[in-house]
């Protein structure tokens, strides 16, 4: 795996936060909240069944449902419908945890990765519900288990953070460079790998120097690779292509191609889990709409957004000013891949990596597409957004599939360069959801067809069997009919033989 040769990324945009941006890299701590809200739904929106019932009191770090861990000690008051941070603005069943203020955690034993097998480590990750903190929030244990089977595995620690406005990883690396390196090294060891790559964009020089200074000799196996600042090189498939040259087919996961891509914050939470601390919080970066000012905050999962915003407003005057000019909505995620959210009591989850406070830019009026292919040149996965748009706008999902809509990362580069300011990414989101919906209904139709085929086969078989029984019975009846005649014939013969004696 040639870590030094960086393959070119087709398209992509050189986006970096404004030069004079004031990024406050100190990680503030948010104090304990009176109540936490834990949605019972995972990243693929399947509903989770809780292992606890309302009224139980739990310790911090205790598993409440598969993939959900209590952020602090307290009692579970109820399970009710509560908003969650998702563009659908819907409510989902949520566990409400009232904290008792003691903030006591369940004690876990420290796992020494040199003696213990990988299975043991993966169980610990499973129990402490470690999720990817890069934005997609996959279940990390499954991801590592799938990657572990590969012989020559490549480990990439993704600290690229290419979208401007998101700088939680940057702050993490600036504050705790040594812990980051040790965590990377620990993972490299128990995955028995010779080396690992820590990919970082070259516009984060302070973090790079911090990492390089703390790189003690035994940590040199972690190769710190600087990538030119091109958005969206942080997404998994472009990053894998740039570092290893492997072109992932749409829908193919990096782990299938023998590459394990972990976010730097996830690596740290894995390391904490092995050291026995439950990973119940994450760093969220909050910035103003113009991305001039941003700050970073360590927030526990389940904390309502309202609390995070209030804390940020107190500690940063620019955010306070941006909030007042706002229409009570914030944006979750980065400027390009995020979505607007107005229900502020929705909780912070593993996938909430950034918040943007400030006036929301309405989409300006779109004019007709003149097929100038500016969008095609910036598309990082070499698609043709103008053809996809034409297909999506006239709802021809099969044509959109033929132009590989499923490979689209929804990164938003094409929206930025479109001279007719057409909302391409929202159209692609609609087309992707419509295609998934169509696939689900086709699958259901297929199940119904098989059931009806089984039903009609059984009915036919039953009819044939009845037919055969009918025939058999008739034959038997006919058979009996003949034997009755034989008996009568025999009787007549007997009568004829003895004319005198009996009559």
């Amino acid at each position, binding site marked *: 795996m040639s870590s030094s040769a960086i393959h070119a990324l087709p398209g992509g945009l050189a986006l970096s936060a404004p030069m004079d941006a004031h990024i406050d890299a100190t990680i503030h701590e948010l104090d304990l909240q009176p109540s936490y809200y834990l949605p019972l739904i995972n990243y693929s929106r399947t509903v989770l069944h809780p292992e606890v019932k309302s009224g139980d009191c739990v310790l911090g770090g205790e598993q409440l449902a598969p993939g959900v861990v209590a952020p602090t000690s307290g009692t579970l008051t109820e399970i009710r419908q509560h908003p969650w941070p998702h563009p659908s603005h819907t409510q989902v069943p949520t566990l409400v945890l009232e904290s008792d203020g003691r903030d006591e955690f369940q004690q876990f034993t420290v796992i020494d990765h040199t003696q213990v097998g990988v299975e043991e480590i993966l169980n610990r990750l499973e129990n402490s519900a470690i999720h990817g903190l890069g934005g997609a929030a996959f279940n990390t244990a499954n991801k590592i288990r799938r990657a572990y089977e590969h012989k020559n595995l490549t480990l990439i620690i993704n600290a690229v953070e290419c979208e401007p406005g998101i700088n939680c990883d940057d702050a993490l690396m600036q504050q705790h460079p040594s812990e980051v390196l040790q965590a990377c090294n620990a993972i490299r060891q128990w995955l028995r790998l010779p080396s690992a790559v820590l990919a970082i964009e070259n516009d984060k020089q302070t973090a790079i120097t911090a990492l390089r200074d703390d790189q003690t000799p035994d940590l040199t196996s972690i190769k710190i690779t600087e990538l030119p600042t091109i958005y969206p090189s942080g997404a998994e498939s472009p990053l894998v292509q740039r570092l290893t040259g492997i072109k992932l087919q749409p829908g193919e996961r990096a782990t299938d191609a023998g590459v394990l891509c972990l976010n730097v914050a996830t690596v740290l939470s894995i390391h904490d889990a092995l050291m026995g601390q439950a990973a119940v919080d994450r760093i969220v970066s909050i910035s103003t709409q113009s991305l001039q000012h941003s700050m970073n905050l360590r927030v526990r999962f389940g904390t309502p957004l309202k609390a995070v915003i209030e804390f940020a407003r107190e500690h940063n005057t620019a955010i306070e000013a941006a909030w007042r000019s706002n229409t009570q909505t914030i944006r979750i995620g980065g400027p390009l891949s995020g979505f607007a959210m107005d229900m502020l009591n929705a909780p912070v989850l593993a996938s909430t990596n950034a918040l943007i406070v400030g006036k929301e830019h309405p989409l300006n009026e779109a004019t007709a597409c003149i097929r100038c292919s500016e969008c095609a040149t910036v598309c990082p996965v070499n698609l043709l957004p103008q053809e996809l748009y034409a*297909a999506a*706008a*006239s709802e*021809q999902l099969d044509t959109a599939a033929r132009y590989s809509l499923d490979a689209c990362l929804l990164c938003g580069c094409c929206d930025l360069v479109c001279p007719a300011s057409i909302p391409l990414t929202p159209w692609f989101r609609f087309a992707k959801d419509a295609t998934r919906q169509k696939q689900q209904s086709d699958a259901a139709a297929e199940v119904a067809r098989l059931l009806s085929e089984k039903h009609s086969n059984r009915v036919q078989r039953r009819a044939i069997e009845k037919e055969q029984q009918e025939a058999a019975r008739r034959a038997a009846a006919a058979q009996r009919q003949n034997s009755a005649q034989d008996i009568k014939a025999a009787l007549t013969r007997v009568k004829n033989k003895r004319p005198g004696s009996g009559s």
Partner: protein
Amino acid sequence: MGVSNRITNALGLGVATTFVLTLAATLSHLLHTFVLIPLNAEFLRIIGFIFIIAVVVQFTELVMRRHSPLLHQVLGLYLPLITTNCAVLAVALLATQHKNTLFSAMWQGFGAAVGFTLVLVLFAALRERLDRADIPKPFQGAAIAFITAGIFSLAFMGFAGVT
């Protein structure tokens, strides 16, 4: 016009026409040189050629019904319509006109048919793109197809006068 709303259908009809035309051109040339000229019954030419084309189309329909029912179902009426396609008859007549050998007659039939298929497929691709256009109400459907065909033939006017 009717078939060329999908590229696959247009290609289907194109291939069928190529098959018919090559066969018809050669057979008509044979009929012309070995039957009509000796009996100097030149005037029977048109009827003879139409008969040949009809036979060949029937044969193609049988083959197609046997082998790709979907294409047959889609082409439906347009397959027998090839017999009435004046271009097919014209090429057959031209093939025998220019005193060319059997081989060049066949090539002329084949070339004309490939041209026909190309235009058909181009037109089908064009119409498929028009499905996605936001065409004003009065022009939707066949109207826009005829206008596009008009402009397309306008482009071919450029070849007027090519010797």
